[in-house]
């Protein structure tokens, strides 16, 4: 029941955002120079930012970009973690030790510093879309080690299960064993990992964006929308400045409660 409510809330948000974007006359980058930092008006329901861009449109676009990017990154990181964990579980012990050490190295990297390096390697002329893709790919590349450990432990327990031994005794190939025997059982590990990664990556993108390392302008993102909150002049003008952070919290809440529900009823 809770799962359904969370899913419906998320769906409504997404559909609303899509409709807003479709009906907006100028799109997320259109600037209305006559009404910058405007409060509520008939034209701009939730006001505009410093450059006179409509806040409703921008927050809708940010929601869709954040959700799509985080979902893709979560899928990628879960896939990497799954492959890595399975490879470690089915290798000779010294290879497994090496792989686990590799994931340790990844976990202990100063990832914020690395992100800054990775972003600085992108040319300044990089298109906003490229910066968005780069941000989420980097998040996916950094997100897998913790998840891989969980998959490795799970696969290790399944490896010596009776039905795995029976599969070997039937002469099944390794890839048959993985596909037929392991994946159905690992699903209960992989799915929650995926669902937990989505909100985590949305928050990570928001944090990076607030540092100026996330999705590039003029593409809107949670990070760049939250950046407005340190503009005291804007804060004094309109309460609608808080709209992005309120929406972000709602989105994260629905995603988290959905993940929790799936995990408990898996």
């Amino acid at each position, binding site marked *: 029941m809770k799962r359904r409510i969370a899913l419906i809330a998320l769906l409504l948000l997404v559909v609303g955002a899509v409709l807003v974007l479709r009906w907006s006359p100028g799109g997320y980058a259109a600037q209305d120079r006559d009404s910058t930092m405007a409060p509520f008006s008939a034209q701009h329901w939730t006001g505009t930012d410093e450059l006179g861009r409509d806040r409703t449109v921008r927050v809708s676009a940010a929601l869709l970009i954040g959700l799509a990017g985080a979902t893709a990154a979560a899928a990628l990181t879960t896939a990497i973690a799954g492959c890595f964990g399975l490879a470690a579980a089915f290798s000779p012990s010294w290879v497994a030790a090496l792989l686990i050490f590799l994931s340790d190295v990844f976990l202990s990297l100063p990832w914020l510093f690395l992100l800054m390096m990775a972003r600085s390697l992108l040319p300044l002329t990089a298109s906003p879309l490229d910066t968005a893709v780069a941000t989420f790919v980097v998040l996916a590349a950094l997100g897998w080690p913790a998840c891989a450990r969980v998959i490795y432990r799970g696969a290790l327990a399944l490896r010596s299960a009776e*039905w795995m031994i029976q599969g*070997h*005794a039937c*002469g099944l190939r390794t890839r048959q064993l993985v596909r037929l025997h392991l994946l159905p*059982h690992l699903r209960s590990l992989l799915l929650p990992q995926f669902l937990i990664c989505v909100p985590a990556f949305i928050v990570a993108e928001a944090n990076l964006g607030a540092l100026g390392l996330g999705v590039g302008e003029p593409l809107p993102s949670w990070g760049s929308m939250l950046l407005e909150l340190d503009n005291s002049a804007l804060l004094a003008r309109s309460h609608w400045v808080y709209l992005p952070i309120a929406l972000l919290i709602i989105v994260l809440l629905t995603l988290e409660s959905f993940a929790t529900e799936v995990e408990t009823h898996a």
Partner: protein
Amino acid sequence: MSPPLLQVRLAAAYGKRRVLGDVQFDLCRGEALGMVGTSGAGKTTLVMALLGLLPWRGGQVSGEVLIDGANLLTLPAHQARQMRGKRIALVPQSPMTALNAAVSLRSHFEEAWRAHESSGARALEPRLRQLISEVQLPAGDGFLRRKPGQISVGQAQRVLIALALLHRPAILLADEPTSALDPVTQAEIVKLLRQLSQRNGTALLYISHDLLSVLHLCDRLAVLHDGAIVECMSVAHLEQAQHPATLSLLRALPVPVGLLLSHSRTAMDSSARAQDSIELHLSNANREAQREDTHLTAGNLDNPCEEQMRSYSCTH
């Protein structure tokens, strides 16, 4: 005389703990060899070692398992895989955990078929129908669509026997295939194994702690004790057993072995129906014996076997 189908000479250990010392035996075409031993004698370790699967359980094997002259233990991984299921197959101990609960029975058969046959699913159908009737499972597609959790333990064991026989292996390893079953089903499974090995000429290595079923099923008997085979003899000559481990196994029988063997012999002469009744009878006697061990209450002694057992346990 043709060389033995299976020649075994191996030792196995888990880390520094040695479980099998020097196990040596041969198995000829169409022969049924019973391997008996108490729990902890190394029976399951032996099965895993024979299939080259002990490393998955964290153990190490040395020595050789020669099938058709090729050593399964030193073959490259892909060739060893081609042996398993095709030349040497396993009927495992616990039917419920040996089937993957997340997958339908049909998928089990399809994957096992695909592992050794490139002819596709169409060739599987006639073979599958034949197998299902051989192991006396319900015909029809509905049964195979079920998942392991939706069938009984006895049916699961029949499924596993069918799975083992899928590629008509030359050697069948049965690792205590009846230990999880009730006495009636036990008797049925033992009968089924005997029929199948006689009909197909499959060599059977039947591993069990249940000496009764071994006596019914096997031509020869090997006694595994403390990781070594201490005695190996024809079942017919069991009365001449000398080793203390064999003798203690024989003493644990509900009726003296001589009587059992004469029963078996008369049973073999008479019809299959008579064999069944004796099997059932013996299984029941066995069960009664266990019950009697725990609390010796006076009951009605209308069962001659039970009576004999009672006097037997009094004298020893």
